[in-house]
Structure formats: structure tokens, C-alpha cells
């Protein structure tokens, strides 16, 4: 059997080699986990800073929407702190009730699940890194898992970084800011600008396309992206809601699985 190349802590795997991210077993079954360091934690926070203005406006917009819809401030803060997923929280406002029945509770749960189903795929895509974190860090940090720290982590890991602290640091900062800005958003209500006016609704999409560039590894590797693009557009035109993200991404992954192994560096 040929040995996959194990990346060291600071050196990425050479191009064309198979990286080996499995936990290291050293004779006795002792698993060596990805490090979680304070410098990594601070770096994660620093990498998150450019994303904060957009995220603050979004969080405030949720607070304003919650006030408008009749949630108490306590409920709005709980939503930001417990659910901690912007798109799902905003969509849930449309289904918010004054009196809850079994049916309306189930409905809001299912809609939130549908909006967040993309995270299942995001988690799977980063599994090779998550599985190197110790169980405690893994389950804690997954609670703080959002689009923003996912994309930062994808980029950081691809560049050869292995310090799990960046994921934790980024998540903690995002969570704190998200929960805090809910309050002024709720209290100021109508003073909060509509995110669309300034294009704040495009913050995450723009970050996503920017991060796509370093993921480019040649035309053959990008073929699944083409499949994802076509399928997601078709699904969006055919089906209401957010299904296009999950279906398009799955189509891309299946295309990747069906493709022949990439011939070294293209």
C-alpha cells in the first residue's frame, strides 16, 4: 500500500500528493488531536474582523424584525444565542405565533431545518479537519459553526493551517457580536437600515465568491462546479425556498465522485 503524505503542522502537502488527515496513532492507541492555541484563537478573531460590519447590520436587522413581529427582547436574544443562524432566524419571524400549537411549532422547526440543511453539507466538506479536533472542541465549536467561519476554515486549512483555535476564535467572536447587536437592533427598530439598501445582503455571497478563487485547481477539478451551477439554477427556478443550495451542491459532489482521479497537477 502506498503511504499518503502526512502534512506537518506548518507545511502543506505538495501538490498532487494525497494528504493524510487521519488522527495519528502512535503505537499505543493515543490519538494526537489538532492543536487549539491562543495565537490560533486570536488569528481566528482577526480573520473575522472584515466580515463584522456586514454581520452587525444583519444581526441588527433581525433584532428590528423581531421587535416588529412582537417578540420580546428576551426571545429575540434567545433566538440569536441559541439558533445563531441569520437566514433561518429571519425566515422564522414570518412563522412566529402569539399562541403556539403543536402544528405551528413543528412547522417553524422544519422550515429552520430546511434553511440550515446546507450546513450538513458544509460540515461534511470540512470533516477531514473536524475529525482531527478533540471531541470536546469538536462538539463545542460546531455549535458556533456558521457560513462565515466555515469559509474561513476552508481557506485556512487549504493553505496548510492546522490550528483548530482559528475556528473556535472566529466562532466565539461571531456569536458574541451576533447576540449583542440583536439588542440595539431591537430597541432602535425602524432606525436600522434595510440591509438591501447598502447591499449588506450580499456580504456572505461576496465572501463566498472571493474564496472560490483560491479553491480553483484547474479545469477538470472545476467540472463539478459547472454541474452545481446548472443544477442550482434549474432548482431555484423550479422550487421555492432554499433547496437549490443543497441540491446544487449535492449534484456537484456526485459529479466529483463520478470523475476519474485527477491526473497530478492540471
Amino acid at each position, binding site marked *: 500500500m502506498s503511504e499518503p503524505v502526512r502534512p506537518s503542522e506548518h507545511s502543506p502537502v505538495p501538490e498532487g500528493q494525497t494528504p493524510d488527515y487521519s488522527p495519528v496513532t502512535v503505537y499505543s492507541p493515543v490519538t494526537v488531536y489538532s492543536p487549539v492555541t491562543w495565537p490560533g484563537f486570536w488569528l481566528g478573531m482577526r480573520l473575522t474582523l472584515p466580515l463584522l460590519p456586514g454581520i452587525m447590520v444583519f444581526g441588527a436587522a433581525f433584532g428590528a424584525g423581531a421587535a416588529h413581529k412582537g*417578540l*420580546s427582547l428576551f426571545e429575540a436574544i434567545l433566538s440569536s444565542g441559541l439558533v445563531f443562524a441569520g437566514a433561518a432566524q429571519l425566515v422564522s419571524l414570518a412563522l412566529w405565533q402569539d399562541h403556539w400549537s403543536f402544528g405551528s411549532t413543528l412547522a417553524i422547526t422544519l422550515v*429552520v431545518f430546511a434553511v440550515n440543511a446546507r*450546513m450538513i453539507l458544509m460540515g461534511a466538506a470540512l470533516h477531514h479537519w473536524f475529525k482531527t479536533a478533540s471531541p470536546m472542541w469538536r462538539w463545542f465549536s460546531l455549535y458556533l459553526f456558521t457560513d462565515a467561519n466555515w469559509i474561513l476554515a476552508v481557506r485556512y486549512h487549504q493553505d496548510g493551517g492546522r490550528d483548530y483555535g482559528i475556528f473556535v476564535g472566529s466562532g466565539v467572536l461571531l456569536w458574541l457580536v451576533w447576540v449583542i447587536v440583536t439588542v440595539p437592533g431591537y430597541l432602535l427598530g425602524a432606525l436600522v437600515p434595510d440591509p438591501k439598501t447598502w447591499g449588506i445582503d*450580499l456580504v456572505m455571497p461576496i465572501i*463566498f465568491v472571493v474564496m472560490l478563487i483560491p479553491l480553483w485547481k484547474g479545469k477538470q477539478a472545476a467540472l463539478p462546479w459547472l454541474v452545481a451551477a446548472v443544477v442550482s439554477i434549474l432548482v431555484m427556478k423550479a422550487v421555492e425556498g432554499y433547496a437549490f443550495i443543497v441540491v446544487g*451542491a449535492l449534484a456537484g459532489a456526485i459529479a*466529483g465522485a463520478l470523475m476519474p482521479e485527477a491526473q497530478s497537477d492540471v
Partner: protein
Amino acid sequence: MSDLLLDRLETSSGALLALLCMAAATYLCRLGGVWLMDHLPPSPRLRRALGALPGSIIISTVVPLGVMGGPASLIALVVAMLVMFKLRRDVLALVAGMVTVALLRRMGF
């Protein structure tokens, strides 16, 4: 004043339960993919699928938006990509994209 504070703290058991269900559903999504991959047998095919996944997720999120979101979104996304492609500075590319969409939306696109 204290009445005002109490109003803001009020909630009902129904609302609390709904919030807890929403939170549980979301945490399930956060864990689900990682948990699933823990339990699927690794294979070259699965590895290729996962390798194609990050780019496919990004494309499936962004392309429909670029196509259907109006000219301002499309132009801003393209500008951000071009800046990143040429200069390889992600923050600069983000700022360029945001300035573009803000200006275009102000101009009424």
C-alpha cells in the same frame, strides 16, 4: 420603567419551546454532516465527492443569486472575483464588491 423591563423579558412556554426546537434543528444540521462522515466508510469516490463539495456549495449559493438577484448583485460578485483573481487580497476584494453593490443600489439598480 420596571414594567417596561418586565415586558421585554416576558415569554411564554410555547415560544420557549419553539425556540428550543429551532435551536435543536440547527445544531442537528451543524453536527449532521460531520457525524455522517464519521460513519460512512472512506473510499476514493467519497473523498472526491467531499473534495468537490466546498466549491459546489459556494457555486450553488452564489450563482443562482447572481443570475436572479438583478444586475447590481451580478456586477458586484464579478467585480469581487476579478479583484481577488488579480490581486489575491480577500479583504480588498470584499470591499470592492461591497462598494460596487452599494453604489449601484443607490443609483437605483
